[in-house]
């Protein structure tokens, strides 16, 4: 009978609790009450949990109340804590309350089921009892969900693919979520903060909250064109979630300019056109279209190409064009550097060619002529002035 009354009182106290706050001393309630916000809780075995209790005094003189817990199952430890220390008695002042914590250490092997512990507060005139029902259960399973904002991305093998992933923690507590991604071989996948560069292995997510992280996937330069799949996986405790992300790599031409048989030097006479074979190789994964050739040379030089553009170079194929280099008339003998560039829609490659300029030998011949004239003069003199 009494038991039921106290339970009813406790329930009543719960119901009026908001009212208590609004109106500190209800007029028609009087006495000392032992209360708990949640007198029936679900706990996990093998953990330490606390149940918060309160001793409330309404309009009565302070009384010393001895505290005790009964009905503790074997192997459990139940300790009443007040102000951070184990306490054995409490004494709430008039119209005030004392907060208590019931700390429960539940052994790991405790059987499932509901146990009822009774917290009692016994004073000179009051004898308060509060039953607390403890149900042992596997906790609410941690639940995570992973949602990509843009699950399918497209780019070249040179671009990096960045997926924003939304991690939601649907479980009742804060979780440290570990992040992992499974990408094709030689693909580099790393998680970073959404707005940051710090790479992450795990992020804490508060209960019921969500967090966005970024998964950055960098394909190898040699990746062939095609569709790839990346699986992002998050895990915390026994929960995990995965999502599949698509990666569509469009091929990318990659050009390489060199001379025939790798020879990037040539000789050219000043003011005379010289033809240099230039080999353009596409080492990329997609055909290079409309490859334009250009050259940068010292001022006064002329570089043209025959043909000036190459329509198409398939991957791993090469085409040969002739570069027609004309050094300026005023070029002095020696080595010069000219750079030959092949470009096709954003992709370009250039190579420096060394041109050894030889000056015209015309003056050399002229010089021989001058010496010849001098010798002729001598012969003429010998013939003309020869005398005995």
């Amino acid at each position, binding site marked *: 009978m009494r038991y039921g009354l106290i339970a009813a009182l406790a329930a009543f106290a719960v119901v009026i609790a908001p009212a208590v706050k609004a109106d500190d001393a209800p007029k028609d309630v009087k006495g000392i009450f032992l209360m708990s916000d949640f007198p029936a809780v679900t706990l996990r075995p093998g953990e330490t949990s606390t149940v918060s209790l309160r001793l409330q005094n309404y309009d009565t003189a302070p009384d010393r109340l001895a505290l005790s817990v009964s009905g503790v199952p074997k192997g459990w430890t139940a300790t009443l804590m007040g102000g951070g220390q184990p306490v054995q008695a409490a004494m709430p002042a008039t119209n005030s309350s004392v907060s208590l914590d019931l700390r429960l250490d539940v052994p790991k092997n405790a059987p499932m089921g509901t146990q009822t512990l009774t917290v009692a507060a016994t004073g000179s005139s009051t004898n308060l009892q509060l039953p607390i029902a403890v149900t042992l259960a596997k906790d609410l399973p941690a639940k995570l969900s992973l949602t990509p904002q843009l699950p399918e991305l497209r780019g070249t093998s040179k671009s990096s693919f960045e997926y924003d992933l939304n991690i939601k923690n649907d479980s009742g507590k804060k979780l440290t979520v570990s992040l992992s991604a499974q990408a094709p071989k030689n693909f580099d996948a790393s998680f970073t903060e959404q707005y940051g560069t710090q790479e992450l292995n795990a992020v804490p997510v508060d209960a019921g909250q969500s967090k966005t992280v970024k998964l950055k996937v960098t394909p190898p330069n040699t990746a062939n064109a095609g569709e790839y799949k990346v699986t992002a996986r998050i895990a915390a405790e026994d929960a995990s979630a995965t999502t599949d992300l698509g990666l569509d790599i469009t091929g990318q031409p990659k050009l390489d300019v060199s001379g025939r048989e790798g020879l990037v030097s040539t000789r050219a006479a000043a003011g005379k056109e010289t033809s240099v074979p230039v080999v353009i190789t596409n080492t990329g994964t997609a055909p290079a279209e409309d490859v334009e050739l250009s050259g940068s040379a010292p001022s006064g030089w002329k570089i043209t190409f025959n043909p000036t553009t190459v329509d198409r170079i398939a991957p791993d194929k090469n085409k040969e064009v002739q570069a027609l280099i004309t050094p300026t008339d005023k*070029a002095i*003998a020696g080595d010069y*550097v000219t750079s030959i560039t092949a470009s096709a829609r954003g992709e370009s490659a250039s190579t420096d060619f060394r041109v050894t300029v030889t000056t015209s030998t015309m003056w050399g011949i002229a010089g021989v002529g001058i*010496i010849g004239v001098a010798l002729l003069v*001598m012969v003429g003199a*010998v013939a003309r002035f*020869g005398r*005995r």
Partner: protein
Amino acid sequence: MQREGSAFQGLGVVTLKELSDHLTSTRMRVLEWLVVLVALAALYGAIQQIKDTTAEDPFLFLRLFTTSRDPLPSFVSFLSFLVPLMAIGLGFDAVNGEHNRRTLSRILAQPIYRDALLFGKFLAGLVTLSISLISLWLIVIGLGLLLIGIPPGGEEIARSFVFLLVTIVYAGVWLALALLFSIVFRSAATAALVTLGIWLFFTFIWPVLAGAVAQIIVPPDPRYMALGLQTPGTAIAEQVLARFSPSTLYAEIVVALLDPTTRALGPIYLSQLQGAVLGAPLPLGASVLIAWPQIVGMVATAILLFVIGYVIFQRQEVRA
């Protein structure tokens, strides 16, 4: 009266006789010792300098010729002074000496033409100079091998050989000049003084004078002067004038031959250097081509001086 038969009859005899005279003369010995000792001193300085400053240089051997160590000038600068002295020393009394000894008529009484006499004298002088220069060249290479211990490459040998030939031609120019004045002046002392005077003028005074004359011919542009630059026209005029001196020509040839990175002799515009790989050595052919006008100029000068002397000698009265 026209001669009969070859103008070069007796050339061999004259050449050999002159050669033996030269090689046994005290004058020649003094000149040779002077040249060898001075050149050795310069060479020793160069080797010490090369040993002190060890640096990777693909043309280390050529540095033997061009490196100098205070207070001695380099081997090449010594040569450019001493070779003219040697040539003038050998040639200044070639013809007037015969006059003064009254031997000219006697020689010409033999079946030897004047042509052959003059050719023989010139050739003998040139051969004498060549012998001493070749020995000097071999001494340099041998000492270089001994003291540096690095064998010269083919390119270096080729370059130094061309340098040797050019030096002989340079000697030929001064020999021809000395021969000319020995024909013109009866007094050997006058001929020697005039030749030495011309040598001094062209070697020391003319390079300075060329700059002054160039400024008169092409006045410097004030815009260039404001920038502290030489006006291109003036620079070109100065160089053209300076090149009238065989010493300048020789110096330019030496630079082109012994420094393979030389790409041009004379002023060049910056635009010509755009894209140029500086410090890359030129092949020997290209270097010779750069210096070719100078080489031609020297050869032609030597021939023309000789021809002038020849013509004067042919028209001279020798029976004085």
